[in-house]
């Protein structure tokens, strides 16, 4: 079926009053970003709907991208045709043949804004229904809850036909919920937390700590590639790599073993907070889940969170591991997350970290370090990479391989 455009219906928008314009503008921008390698596609955001004019771009490929864009409630691939009865009949038949499966019930649903058109909605419903009955076997009409609704809209410029109502990703357009930084490790939880933050419209910058030569380039690339998967939901995400080895070495040398983990985390949070401030963010997100590991007990969280008053939001805080994994599988990050590259959280992990660290002890030990100098040097070494949907960093040789093989 050669669709000419996609009709997009907005999400929670109706409750948003004056923000409507903002919302629609953001959504259009995000759609433009995810469809950036289809230059022929035109995006026309309107007050009540958005029209994506395909201009020959294959619907199936556009669909793959579109279904991940937050802020879209439903959408329909549509064919725009001339307003003649024959064209409407033929197109209706072609659409039915493409989407109807034996056993389904259907109805024709016509809307007409062009009141000069020769037939009214009831007449059109009747005529097109009759025509389809004449051309296809086993059709069954059902008015109340049909499996398939053939929608016909007769407007001033043309007639629009569609037979599918596809569910969008829901949520809010990324960017309408303000900016924040996300602490992305490379494990299973933080990508899921990122997804949930994006779903509420929050635009996030990824902050990733890495510690060469203790961690390999692969671990860094894995985090970048995870960001590439998440960029499907955002259009583009900035990835900030923060060198962390010097801080870890210093802590290892000067802090009692039981508090290694707590103090490392306090540094991470400080760094994330400074990056947030520099980039105009309002909050910090992370993938902590209550009680999952020593650093995620409430006592630990309190001792770590002590370094900032910025809101630290934890979207997966109350989820079970199995729930987090199910979501990771759904959003496509799981297989990558379980790739076993050591990250900076594991390399200096003490064998017996305190699960109930004390805030004042943490402060007292930390006083032995030149905190601000360490932080400044780490910040001086950051690298920012804009990452687009499905950018690859681990398998970046795949194309080279394809040429060889």
């Amino acid at each position, binding site marked *: 079926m050669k669709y000419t455009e996609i009709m997009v219906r907005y999400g929670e928008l109706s409750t948003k009053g004056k923000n409507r314009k903002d919302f629609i503008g953001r959504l259009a921008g995000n759609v433009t970003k995810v469809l950036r390698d289809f230059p022929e596609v035109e995006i026309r955001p309107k007050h009540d709907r958005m029209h994506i004019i395909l201009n020959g771009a294959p619907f199936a490929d556009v669909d793959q991208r579109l279904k991940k864009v937050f802020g879209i409630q439903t959408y329909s691939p549509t064919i725009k045709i001339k307003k003649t009865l024959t064209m409407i009949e033929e197109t209706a038949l072609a659409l039915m043949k493409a989407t109807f499966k034996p056993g389904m019930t259907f109805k024709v649903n016509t809307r007409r804004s062009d009141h000069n058109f020769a037939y009214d909605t009831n007449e059109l419903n009747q005529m097109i229904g009759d025509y389809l009955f004449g051309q296809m076997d086993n059709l069954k009409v059902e008015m109340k809850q049909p499996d398939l609704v053939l929608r016909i809209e007769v407007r001033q410029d043309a007639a629009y036909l569609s037979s599918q109502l596809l569910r969008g990703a829901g949520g809010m357009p990324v960017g309408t919920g303000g900016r924040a930084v996300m602490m992305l490790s490379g494990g299973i939880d933080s990508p899921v937390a990122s997804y949930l933050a994006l779903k509420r419209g929050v635009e996030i910058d990824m902050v990733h700590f890495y510690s060469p030569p203790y961690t390999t380039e692969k671990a860094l690339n894995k985090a970048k590639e995870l960001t590439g998967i998440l960029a499907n939901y955002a259009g583009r995400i900035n990835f900030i790599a923060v060198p962390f080895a010097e801080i870890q070495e210093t802590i290892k040398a000067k802090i009692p073993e039981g508090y290694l983990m707590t103090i490392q985390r306090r540094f991470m949070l400080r760094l994330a907070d400074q990056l947030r401030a520099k980039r105009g963010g309002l909050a910090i997100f992370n993938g902590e889940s209550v009680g999952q590991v020593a650093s995620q007990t409430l006592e630990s969280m309190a001792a770590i969170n002590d370094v900032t008053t910025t809101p630290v939001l934890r979207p997966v805080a109350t989820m079970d591991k199995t729930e987090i994994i199910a979501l990771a599988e759904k959003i496509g990050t799981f297989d990558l997350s379980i790739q076993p590259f050591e990250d900076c959280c594991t390399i200096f992990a003490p064998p017996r970290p305190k699960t109930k660290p004390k805030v004042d002890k943490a402060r007292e030990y930390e006083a032995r370090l030149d905190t601000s100098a360490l932080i400044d040097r780490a910040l001086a070494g950051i690298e920012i990479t804009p990452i687009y949907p499905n950018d690859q960093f681990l398998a970046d040789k795949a194309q080279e*391989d394809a040429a*060889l*093989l």
Partner: protein
Amino acid sequence: MIYFDNSATTKIDPTVLTTYDQVAREIWGNPSSLHRLGDRAAQLLASSREQLADLLGTKPSELFFTSGGTEANNWAIKGTAWQKQTFGQHLITSSVEHASVANAFTALENQGFRVTRLPVDKAGRVNVNDLRAALDSDTTLVSVMGVNNEIGTIQPIEDISDLLANYPTVNFHVDNVQAIGKNIWSRVFTPRVDLVSLSAHKFHAPRGTGILYKKAGKMILPLHDGGGQEQGLRSGTENLPAIAGMAKALRLLLTDEVEKADREAAIKRKIVDYLQAKPGIEIFSPVSLNFAPHILCFALTGIRGETLVHTLEEYDIYTSTTSACASTRSATASTLSAMQITDRVATSAIRLSFDETNTMAEAEEFIRVFEEIYQHFAPINHLGE
């Protein structure tokens, strides 16, 4: 030159050789090394495996790289026998297998395993009823080739699979070396096939590499102990240039597979049509759905196969006395013997084996030359009397 000995080995494809060369020069790290060079090699190894799996319709984790068909066959057979010997020590194969299968079973027999060798009919084909009768509670392995290397018989792999559906603990191995790319068993090993052997040099790839497909969940003991490559089952540094070449060659081979097989079949038909009319010639590989399109075995009775091969060679035409692996020994062809062909006829047999690069013009040239040879030998041999 006319090369009609493709079942022995094939000429390496120049573009495959380019891949080999490039990989050997540029991606020479050990895939097991930690550093970047090793990483790059591991990446290419994974890409090669994925491409092969895609082409063969398997999972990448089900493909194991070996040194060739012989190792794959030995591993499938001995690996199964040893892995399962506490459950049973009875093994079944056919009487027309390639030496690497037949001799692996002989070796196991010498270790105390019980081996049943199924007979074949006049077409060299195994009968499923014989297999049914041979199976018992001690049986752990059935190994039957996909296509016979000497005369091209296609074995009833589907029927055997159906029968073995009732014997889930028996490993079913198919030596598929001759069948690949001939529109026979290229992709679908039936779901009941557990182990499949392939050899790269039979499809224009470098020699010294091959594949054993092992269905997920099936256990076989490794033959090599060492560094634990290939999921710990086949130690030894991977022959990456050859493996990459093999992946490329298989892609090329399976492109337009049907058309290629049809072309080979047409060449075979042309020569068979000619030979059929000649007194004194016996054809063992008829044009039939039960025979591979690329193998033609026949005998000019009374003239030793070796004599014919050498005579043809004078005209720059390369053929073989049945299997290349057996042809340097004086023993008669094992498949023909198993088919109850008399020694006198069997020693006269020669094998032509085609590939997709052979042409109808070559078939015509072969016929012209053979007619000359035939006329020369006819009076000596009192043919047609």
